[in-house]
């Protein structure tokens, strides 16, 4: 642990950590359920958030506590962001099962894709990195309108190789836009390890070339992640322009349910990574601070399981969307 609970970063209270832990338990339970439903042939495709939860939740708490308003441009692995922002487990599962009532895209898109504007989350596309310029544009619009939105743009390590990320980061820095670029570096782009993606150890080393602040922290550590994100959010909120926050996380499962990581990743490496499990780390921290007991933890897990069970039932019971509107929403009016 980088910090003890006496010395938490500004804005973060011990109760926040308890709340974050409870969310993390719920999200891990949900994530595991979705994966299982894929193996049962029910969910067509899944990208797991397991190992990324601390980074994702810390960023959301930092946005909440350090901006007047914010908006999240997520990517497919950001289950913890969407759930923290209010997408319910049932809604989430409607997405994974492509059922009627799915709120992001009406099941036109892969799960977790589309928009939930009232929950401040947009994730339009599966094309890696296309959302980074969108996030910058959203921030530009906010600045032009004079509202106080800070935009969080989430991406993986692999995404940073895309030209559009370069263009968008540069653009945001020139115009000093309120954006926080959050890189969840799990050291793999599908099978391609970091050293084949880039010749640097820290992606944050790119920030200097855009004239912005960049920092790399342990993304399995909620407190360190919170602190780094909070500083970046504050910079954005104060009109000081964008920042790049690299959160070093772990990917415990294959890239997606379609992937087989055994051909490119040693089991020992994953076992080693498991030692940094954000869930375990946060629980241990809370326990050592007297804020969590094994009994309370079991309670949390059981209540999570019950909630996910109920959501599963609801989602399974829902019908597939009717195809009647398949031609609609190409344009404002059907032509």
């Amino acid at each position, binding site marked *: 642990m980088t910090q003890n609970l006496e010395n938490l970063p500004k804005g973060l209270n011990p109760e926040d950590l308890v709340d974050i832990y409870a969310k993390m338990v719920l999200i891990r339970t949900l994530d595991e359920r979705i994966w299982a439903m894929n193996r049962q042939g029910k969910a067509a495709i899944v990208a797991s958030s397991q190992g990324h939860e601390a980074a994702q939740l810390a960023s959301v708490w930092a946005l909440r506590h350090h901006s007047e308003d914010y908006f999240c441009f997520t990517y497919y692995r950001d289950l913890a962001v969407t759930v923290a922002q209010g997408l319910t487990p049932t809604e989430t599962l409607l997405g994974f099962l492509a059922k009627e009532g799915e709120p992001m895209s009406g099941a036109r898109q892969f799960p977790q894709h589309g928009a939930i504007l009232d929950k401040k989350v947009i994730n339009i596309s599966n094309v890696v990195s296309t959302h980074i*310029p*969108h*996030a*910058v544009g959203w921030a530009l619009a906010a600045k032009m309108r004079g509202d106080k939105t800070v935009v969080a743009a989430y991406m993986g390590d692999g995404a940073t190789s895309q030209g559009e990320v370069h*263009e968008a980061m*540069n*653009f945001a820095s020139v115009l000093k836009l309120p954006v926080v670029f959050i890189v969840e570096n799990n050291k793999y782009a599908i099978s391609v390890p970091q050293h084949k993606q880039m010749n640097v150890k820290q992606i944050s080393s790119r920030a200097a070339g855009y004239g912005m602040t960049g920092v790399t922290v342990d993304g399995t550590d909620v407190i360190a992640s919170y602190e780094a994100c909070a500083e970046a959010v504050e910079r954005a909120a104060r009109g000081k322009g964008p920042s790049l926050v690299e959160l070093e996380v772990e990917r415990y499962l294959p890239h997606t349910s379609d992937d087989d990581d055994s051909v490119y990743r040693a089991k020992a490496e994953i076992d080693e990574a498991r030692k940094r499990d954000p869930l375990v780390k946060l629980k241990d921290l809370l326990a050592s601070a007297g804020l969590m007991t094994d009994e309370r933890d079991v309670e949390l897990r059981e209540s999570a399981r019950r909630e996910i069970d109920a959501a599963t039932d609801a989602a399974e019971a829902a019908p597939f969307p009717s195809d009647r509107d398949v031609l609609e929403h190409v344009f*404002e009016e059907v032509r």
Partner: protein
Amino acid sequence: MAMMTVIEAVREAMREEMQRDASVFVLGEDVGRRGGVFLATQGFIDEFGEERVIDTPLAEAAIAGVAVGAAMSGMRPIAEVQFGDFVFPVFNQIVGEAARIRYGTKGKISVPMVLRIPYGGHIRGGLFHSQSPEAYFAHTPGLQVLCPATPYDAKGLLKAAIRSNDPVVFLEHKRTYRAVRGEVPDGDYVVPIGVADIKRYGDAATIITYGLTMHYSLQAAEVLAAEGIEIEVIDLRTVSPIDRDTVLESVRKTNRVLVVHEDNIALGVGAEVSALIAEHAFGNLDAPVMRVAGPDIPAMPFAPTLEAAYMPTADKIEAGLRRLLEY
């Protein structure tokens, strides 16, 4: 009524819309102090300030992508790509993203942006300053693709484009910028998107065209008119979605069709026009739908002799008409 050029009409349309609606802004390379390389935004930075007239880094994907993001949040950006040939870096954002966002959010988010693209050749632009990229966009559901030929249409369509709640690819033919003058009414008006215009009435045959070749088609029609042969010239104006009604009605009247465009022939806009006519007016045709278009070579060589060999000019259109009429 005022006489103005196409570039003046474009400038007026943007200026009036920016005066009318604070959510409209322009971004692109050199649009600020320089006023754009073709001066479409001349004077804007003084009138509207740096905040609404944004000189960007040299990065088309970001220009387009930032515009998409701003439009998603309710602004009405007008993004400029300097030349049609430099448009490919925007494909990911425009063809891949902007076109699908309404559909992919089931109508929750729209993208009210305009991508302005000076395009086309016959200006000694050579291989990389002459491109006609409209067909790529016209193949993409979710995009509205406009190619005005006259100052009147340029102004009225650009206003309609800026006001549209869906993305518009707005193609301005570079050669028309200064070469084409015409009357433009005073005050506000829009030309509706998706509606073709009959620029010349006739009964012997119909030319379906747009952009610079609309003017060359009118010239060819004049030559035949001197011989008493009246050619109808339809200016599509919107090349996607195509105005089927106007096209089919004319076909039913003249029974002969020549499609003319500057873009190369294979899968050019003319292919879709021809296919639509085949599907919906098969029984009305006295001759095959013929096409006069750029040859299937990369558009368009630099030397004047080579450029002339590429370009579908009035004489080539005239020859095409005679082939059609003789069938």
